[in-house]
């Protein structure tokens, strides 16, 4: 029985077109038209509205369509460059909201890919992943603001130009934290690991709240504001080209491109890792630890490596996030954030890179676009007198949504919406086994 989790309607359409589109000319025409039409609609309707929301989602799904189609690689790349490199940034200058959504989706895509290394590749459940993200964010926030003066007396904030170096430092520090956490606990069974990482995530958050005394390091619950942004080295060049944009727009586009580049690098690194010796070792560990040891795979070292790699992506992204957001405080890094990243990985399919990116984009859109829209509709329905419980607001029930998503995905489609073949086999290995062992 084919069971598909609820999809956006476009995917259903996509399924119908699937067979037809794999044949060359139709595919090229379809993709080009798709790009053209959605881009045109976006640019002619820059005001935020339900219509633009829908077009925007369709536009993002274009990337999925490009990925799944069977056309020449060059054509795929060209289309993706046009869509993500030109149309979206240009649209961003018309409406800052949507490019912000795209940037956030990119940030989460990187985080989800990082977590995917730990959970998907190596099979280690990490419930405190956001802690590494927090470490990166606080790192840059402390060093780029007056906060550093409280920690080291006489120290002054590093200049904005250090930002790029700090992305690397964030990467390293994240990795070091990963090893620090991993070293003592990786000998343990998987489910202990889940609890310990959860505890670790909480500890980092509690420390962020409490380390304003005796020495003010994190500024406690007040959070850190006025975080430095990197210099806009390309602004004069853009101006010379005739783009007249204010600083705010420039930063938005700048961060968009930076996140896009990081997503691409992460994708590249993660997929290279996956097919390397290390990646195969992770798969072996995930599938059968004992057999992996018997084959001579250094278990702890490989697990540590997974932890460090995953954590370092979060650390680097934390630096970028803090700089983009200008202000961070501890609640940004709570357990629900870890959970939502985990549900992106699960939705997209454990271990599967394109799936995880799709999961990240879907959950982000769901969180900041789709749920508020539904809430708005429900509110007006409520005002019109329909019997909807007064207290029910979809935007406030993320836990319910993530929870249901986890349970249902685990029961019906543990391999995710874009499954990977190997994983599917692994997870459905036991499907023919009798579920019940009872004799009655």
């Amino acid at each position, binding site marked *: 029985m084919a069971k598909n989790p609820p999809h956006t309607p476009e995917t259903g359409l996509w399924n119908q077109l699937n067979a037809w589109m794999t044949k060359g000319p139709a595919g090229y025409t379809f993709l080009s038209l798709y790009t053209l039409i959605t881009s045109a609609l976006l640019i002619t309707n820059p005001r935020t509205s339900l219509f633009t929301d829908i077009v925007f989602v369709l536009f993002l799904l274009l990337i999925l369509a490009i990925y799944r189609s069977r056309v020449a690689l060059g054509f795929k790349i060209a289309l993706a460059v046009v869509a993500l490199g030109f149309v979206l940034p240009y649209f961003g200058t018309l409406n*800052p909201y949507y490019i912000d959504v795209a940037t956030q989706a990119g940030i989460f895509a990187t985080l989800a890919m990082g977590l995917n290394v730990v959970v998907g590749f190596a099979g280690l459940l990490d419930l405190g992943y956001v802690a590494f993200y927090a470490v990166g964010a606080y790192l840059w926030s402390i060093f780029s603001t007056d906060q550093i003066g409280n920690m080291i007396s006489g120290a002054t904030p590093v200049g904005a130009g250090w930002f790029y170096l700090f992305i690397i430092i964030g990467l390293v520090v994240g990795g070091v934290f990963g090893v620090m956490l991993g070293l003592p606990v990786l000998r343990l069974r998987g489910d202990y690991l889940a609890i310990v990482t959860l505890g670790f995530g909480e500890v980092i958050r509690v420390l962020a709240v409490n380390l304003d005394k005796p020495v003010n390091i994190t500024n406690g*619950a007040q959070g850190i504001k006025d975080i430095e942004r990197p210099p806009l080295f390309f602004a004069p060049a853009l101006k010379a080209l005739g783009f007249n944009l204010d600083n705010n727009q420039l930063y938005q586009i700048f961060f968009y491109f930076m996140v896009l580049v990081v997503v691409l690098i992460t994708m590249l690194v993660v997929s290279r890792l996956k097919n390397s010796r290390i990646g195969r070792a992770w798969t072996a560990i995930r599938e059968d630890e004992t057999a992996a040891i018997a084959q001579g795979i250094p278990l702890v070292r490989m697990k540590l490596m997974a932890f460090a790699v995953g954590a370092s992506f979060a650390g680097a992204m934390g630096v970028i996030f803090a700089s983009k957001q200008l202000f961070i405080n501890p609640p940004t890094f709570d357990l629900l954030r870890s959970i939502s990243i985990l549900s992106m990985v699960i939705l997209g399919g454990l271990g599967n890179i394109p799936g995880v990116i799709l999961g990240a984009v879907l959950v982000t859109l769901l969180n900041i676009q789709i749920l508020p829209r539904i809430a708005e509709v429900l*509110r007006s329905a409520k005002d019109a007198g329909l019997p909807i419980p007064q207290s029910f607001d979809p935007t406030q029930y993320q836990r319910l949504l993530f929870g249901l998503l986890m349970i249902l995905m685990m029961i019906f489609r543990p391999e995710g919406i874009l499954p990977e073949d190997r994983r599917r086999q692994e997870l459905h290995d036991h499907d023919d086994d009798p579920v019940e062992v009872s004799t009655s």
Partner: protein
Amino acid sequence: MKRIMSLIVLVGVLMSLLAACGSAPAASPTTAPATTAPATAEATVAATTEATVEATVEATVEATVEATVAPTEATAEPTPAAMTVVEYIMATAAGMTPEAAAALGTITIASQSPLSGDQAALGTGIRNGVELAIEQANVALAGSGVEIGFTPFDDQAQPEVGSANAKNIVSDPDILCVVGHLNSGVALASLPDYSNSSLVMISPANTNPKITESGYANAFRVVGRDDLQGPIGARFAEEIGVKTVYILHDKTDYGQGVAEFFKLEAERLGLEVLAFEGTDEKSDFSSILTPLQAANPDMIYFGGLYPQAGPLLRQARDRGIMAQFLGPDGLDSPELAKLAGDALEGTYYTTVAAPVSQFPNAAQYATDYTAKFNGSAPPFSAQAYDSAAFCQAAIVTAAVEANGKPTREQVLTAMKSLPALSGITGTYSFSEKGDPNPATYYIFATNSDPAMWDQNELTSKIESAPPTE
């Protein structure tokens, strides 16, 4: 098939759970007030800079204490003198040329407040207040050809959502003024976006000093600030004869911030501060109460919100701790009475927003609100009404100046130059930074009946100019 079965079972379980818990209360009579109005006025961030604190102290000293005004007396006479905002708008609009009125086109005021979630009751009150103000202004201005539109936004009390909405608001050129937010943290996250396009934001509820102290020229508010609310609490404590205080806070930017302001003023007044302790514990306060009981303070100051204050207070009283209890406006909710009950004896709170019944000029508003929205106006909705009225006054002024549709910069300039006007919550002008001058602070003694929360006894009412540097 098995899986479908288990899906059905899942649904069944949820249903029966609903029935199990849901039917029980449903069977009970409807007398129970479903008070889901967590008056979480604030969240996020409060400045603790030396400068603000010093300024605070001065301002407090100069504050005129109207001492123990009984609520009934206060409602007796409407404030005369200053022109009301509505009169001002009418007078200004009258000076508009017909061509200018025709060139106005669409002008919109936006509101941002939580319309969903725990704080939806307060946030909806803000939206409704703005809506009412705009509706009434449109009726009054019908002859002049000016019509103002309204777009409400839901910030969900979350900084990221507020900032995303702000990007939307900024991208709509018709929006010339924003009334919002309920939570300071959300406002601070959204202000950079407003500020980049010089869009005026008037807050009906934010008490965090940073709103107007962060150098945003476009930030205004119609309520007081925590760096006075805390000290006014401390002065009150001294007045009622408290010698020693034990300060607790909830480790949030709001609670910790206001508690720190309280502490500084308490120390300045010579009260002994026995401890300054933070906790995010929500239920079991025994480990906090044991050292507290040993310290034996005259007063416990709790910088935080009512969901924590309620159980804390009850457990303290259960243990026989009979110290006075004082907190900021985070305690201002009937839920506190529900959670703490009789333990509320000897509890006071300071607030910047008294119930509508406290404002002599707001009687008509209260009636109109009830007529339009079926229910009494929650805290901050009258402030939202005033905020929207000030928005309109600035827009109309700017429109006359510009002789057509004003730019956001022009509205901002007009806002800064508005004279002292009388709204339904008081008469004030805006200071250089955007604070109301003067702002009013209230201290209430609680009563333990949730239904009677509106009738909490006003202990004192203090008018104070904003702190200056």
